[in-house]
């Protein structure tokens, strides 16, 4: 109470003093009124000024008062230089906003713990380098050895076809198969109904129950309590089964919990035993979590699990040698893994931009502090202590920082979700919950403090060293400013260097030859109600689609090219030779598919409508790998995969190479098998590739959907993408990195340019007298220009050299994010260097011109 009122008194300044004075003078008046002698009364009273000071000190917290005075003064200073202050706030705000946005994403992805019991005890188990997940059998073997810990299996989080009514009302929801005991182990309680227990996860196919996430319940059902007991029908899908299955909704999960898959909030949880391939010996589809009791160590558990895994392995030489356990306190997902390094790289760029901004503002403030050195000297001479001067400058910095943080928060509030929304593969938008928790607030505060110190300390210390008699000495701050310029240039070079690498990576990828013509191609992903619909039905649908106006050609395949799916086979032997160890890839296609994608046919022919069993088309890479590049048409080999195993295959056509799974992958040897020979790989689904005559193939989307259903009611379009979307989806990370890095590079360059300009401008102003004298005694303009420019350019070059060295040594950390470019390429280094030099020249030009234009007579007279 008293402290508060004393703090508040600090803001009543003038009025408080007036009141004290009034009371004191009333005392004297009273004394005189009582008949005392006026001078005696004044003497008895003592110095009114001293009493006033003592009273003032009693009534006001001194440091608050001095802070208030500094703030008022700082505000006036900032107000006086509106343009500079605005520029400083804008630069810092942008950098702080970028930092905060980046931190919010990092927080949501990596820091914020899952709302489960003992999140620190949650670890993800993986097979190290191999990207494979675990089969359920492996999980079972390991679970037998779990001891005190609890092992939990979860599947991926695909978007599944779900319906709550008839099969026509199809919608999509993210489903995840989880161990029945997961909720119990996580200590979660249902918001409604019940959650799974271990008894919901005993026998394959025997537990058709589902739990909705709270978020999904809110979004889809507006928290309708009657949802319990309703049926959700899912599939058909390879995960659900060859026909669609009904699940009874038994409960709704707790608020705030939407699964362990960071970036993909789960809508519907299903027991692992309902995964159609749970018992398949080769289906490595489960992610495994270890949930430790509080205080337990992970290492012994990991060793036990590895031993169990190896003991269960049939062939010890192929058994996993290591298990990697990684904290999953904040969840785990492919998205997290994919973006970890990219985000780290972005964070570094963002931090560098912030450092540049700080250095920049520090420079501005140093220049101003130097300009204010007479004022500082005056303050020292009337008794201001060093700490008081430091406080004065720091308060001003803090005001800038607070304004910048406010601006930055606004920027981050907008830009964080914007960046996340860019990470948006078709069907699988990343949804990160970017809440503002205490971590984000603490980060912002720490940032404000750090920025204040970074940009304010140097000028503050400079100010505190002011000597009353030193006010005439000048230029002491020049060295500091030059060092700050060098630092800015070094950081700027790093940012430019990184941005250049990311941009050219994206450029390489987006100009990567695919071997197909993606323009105007639409892929209709179709599920059939019955598994293994005979190919003739597929042909009928394709034939029907060919008649639709606006359709140029139609083919179909198991899955679209370049959508990330793939099927590989090994041990192919040619003419009874020993099996080759080359891996070949298989794609099941119809006649007309090659033509639709415009893959050039080099020899032989496409499949005929009435093709005999065992015909295949291969690509150049296949011919190279298995036939030494000879024309393979007419040659035969034995199939080694799936349903066709042992079948003699005859090569009827040779096509040019096309990318198969990923844009970043080299051309692979591919066997195109005939859809007529049976599906076998994808029993319930396939894709119609449709080349349209319209420039935007999506304009036919609705029509084609209908036509598929009309051609055959058992066929249903689940999703629909243009081929270009699929290709673009493969470069999302690279595009995001390139886009953001480029943005930061421009900001960095701008800041560095402004910084350099500011310092030179200040130095010309400071040295106008010296320059004037030089001119008066006959110095050439070129000589003046050289003098002015060179001093700073030396620092620019030094900074660039440091940046280059740093860049080269740090480049290996981002190598995995690059494609087709090397950090040590000459072009990777010259582009940032050229950009920097151009910026430096632009920044140096105006001050140099001003220096040349100095009129010696006027300058010398004014001094």
């Amino acid at each position, binding site marked *: *109470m*008293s402290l508060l*009122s*004393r703090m508040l008194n600090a803001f009543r300044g003038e009025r408080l003093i007036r*009141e*004290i004075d*009034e*009371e*004191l003078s*009333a*005392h004297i*008046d*009273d*004394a005189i009124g*009582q008949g005392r002698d006026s001078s005696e009364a004044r003497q*008895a*009273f*003592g*110095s*009114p000024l*001293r*009493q006033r000071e*003592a*009273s003032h*000190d*009693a*009534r006001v917290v001194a440091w608050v008062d001095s802070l208030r005075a500094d703030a008022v003064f700082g505000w006036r200073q900032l107000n006086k230089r509106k343009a500079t202050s605005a520029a400083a706030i804008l630069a810092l705000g942008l950098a702080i906003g970028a930092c905060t946005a980046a931190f919010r994403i990092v927080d949501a992805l990596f820091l914020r713990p899952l709302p489960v019991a003992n999140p620190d005890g949650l670890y993800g188990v993986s097979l190290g380098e191999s990207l494979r997940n675990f089969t359920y059998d492996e999980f079972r073997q390991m679970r037998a050895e779990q001891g005190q810990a609890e092992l939990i299996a979860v599947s991926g989080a695909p978007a599944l076809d779900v319906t709550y009514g008839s099969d026509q009302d199809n919608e999509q929801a993210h489903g995840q198969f989880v161990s029945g005991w997961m909720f119990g182990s996580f200590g979660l309680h249902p918001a409604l109904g019940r959650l799974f227990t271990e008894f919901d996860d005993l026998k394959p196919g025997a537990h058709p129950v589902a739990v909705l996430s709270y978020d999904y319940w809110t979004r889809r059902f507006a928290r309708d309590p009657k949802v319990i007991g309703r049926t959700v029908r899912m599939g058909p899908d390879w995960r659900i089964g060859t026909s669609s299955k009904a699940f009874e909704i038994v409960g709704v999960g707790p608020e705030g919990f939407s699964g362990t898959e960071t970036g993909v909030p789960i809508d519907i949880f299903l027991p692992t035993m309902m995964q159609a391939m749970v018992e398949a010996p080769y289906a490595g589809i489960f992610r495994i979590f270890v949930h430790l009791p509080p205080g337990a160590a992970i290492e012994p558990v990991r060793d036990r699990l590895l031993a169990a895994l190896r003991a269960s392995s049939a062939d010890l030489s192929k058994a996993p040698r290591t298990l990697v356990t990684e904290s999953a306190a904040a969840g785990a997902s492919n998205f997290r893994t994919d973006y970890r390094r990219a985000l780290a790289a972005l964070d570094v760029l963002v931090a560098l931009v912030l450092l540049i901004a700080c250095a920049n503002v520090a420079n501005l403030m140093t220049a101003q502090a130097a300009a204010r050195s007479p004022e500082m000297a005056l303050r020292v001479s009337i008794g201001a202590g060093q700490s008081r001067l430091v406080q004065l400058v720091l308060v001003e910095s803090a005001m800038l920082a607070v304004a910048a943080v406010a601006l930055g928060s606004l920027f981050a509030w907008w830009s964080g979700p914007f960046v996340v929304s860019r990470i948006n593969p078709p069907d699988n938008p990343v949804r990160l919950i970017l809440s503002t928790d205490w971590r984000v607030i603490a980060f912002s505060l720490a940032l404000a403090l750090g920025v204040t110190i970074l940009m304010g300390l140097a000028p503050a210390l400079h100010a505190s060293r002011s000597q009353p008699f030193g006010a005439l000495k000048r230029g002491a701050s020049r060295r500091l400013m030059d060092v700050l310029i060098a630092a800015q240039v070094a950081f700027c070079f790093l940012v430019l260097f990184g941005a250049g690498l990311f941009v050219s990576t994206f450029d390489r990828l987006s100009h990567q030859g695919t071997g197909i013509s993606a323009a105007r191609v639409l892929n209709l992903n179709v599920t059939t109600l019955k598994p293994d619909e005979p190919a003739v039905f597929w042909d009928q649908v394709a034939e029907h689609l060919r008649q639709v106006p606006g359709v140029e050609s139609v083919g179909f395949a198991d899955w679209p090219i370049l959508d990330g799916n793939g099927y590989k086979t090994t041990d192919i032997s040619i003419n009874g030779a020993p099996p080759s160890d080359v891996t070949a890839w298989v794609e099941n296609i119809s006649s007309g598919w090659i033509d639709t994608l415009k893959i050039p046919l080099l020899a032989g022919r496409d499949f005929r409508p009435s093709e005999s069993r065992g015909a295949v088309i291969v690509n150049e890479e296949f011919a190279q790998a298995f036939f030494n590049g000879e024309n393979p048409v007419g040659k035969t080999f034995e199939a080694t995969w799936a349903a066709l195993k042992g079948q003699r295959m005859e090569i009827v056509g040779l096509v040019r190479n096309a990318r198969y799974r990923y844009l970043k992958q080299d051309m692979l040897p591919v066997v195109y098998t005939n859809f007529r020979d049976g599906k076998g790989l994808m029993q319930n689904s396939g894709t119609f590739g449709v080349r349209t005559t319209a420039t935007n193939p999506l304009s036919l989307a609705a029509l084609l959907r209908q036509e598929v259903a009309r051609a055959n009611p058992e066929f249903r379009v689940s999703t629909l993408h243009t081929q270009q979307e699929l290709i673009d989806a493969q470069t999302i990370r690279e595009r995001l990195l390139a886009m953001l890095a480029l943005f930061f590079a421009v900001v960095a360059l701008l800041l560095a340019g402004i910084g350099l300009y500011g310092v030179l401008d200040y130095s010309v102003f400071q040295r106008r007298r010296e320059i004037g004298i030089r001119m008066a005694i006959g110095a050439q303009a070129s000589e003046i220009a050289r003098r002015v420019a060179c001093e700073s350019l030396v620092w620019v070059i030094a900074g660039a050299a440091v940046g280059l060295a740093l860049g080269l040594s740090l480049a290996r950390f981002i190598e995995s994010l690059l494609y087709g470019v090397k950090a040590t390429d000459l072009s990777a280094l010259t582009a940032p260097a050229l950009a920097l030099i151009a910026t430096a020249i632009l920044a140096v030009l105006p001050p140099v011109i001003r220096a040349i234009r100095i009129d010696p007579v006027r300058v010398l007279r004014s001094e």
Partner: protein
Amino acid sequence: MPKADKLQGSLDLLVLKILSRRPGLHGYAIISAIQDASGEVLRAEEGSLYPALHRMEETGWIRAKWVTKDTGRRARIYELTAAGKKQLASEESRWQAVTSAVNRILRTV
């Protein structure tokens, strides 16, 4: 030795006591009251009264308000708060303890 020195450390107590008897005094009246009540023996240094009053006000022992006197001038008058009454009681008993201890020494030695 100036008389004011005798007030060292007891000014708060005297002010609180005076105000508890006669609330609504202003600064000069408090000085006069101390002087009168002590039979002209004690005399507070007039100037140092005000910082003490302001300190006690900020501590919350006394509260002040401005009133307009008959002369038309404003005066700042003071009165005890609840916290001030408590403080007075504890200061009084502390004073009693100290003086009785001092008296005991004077008697016995």
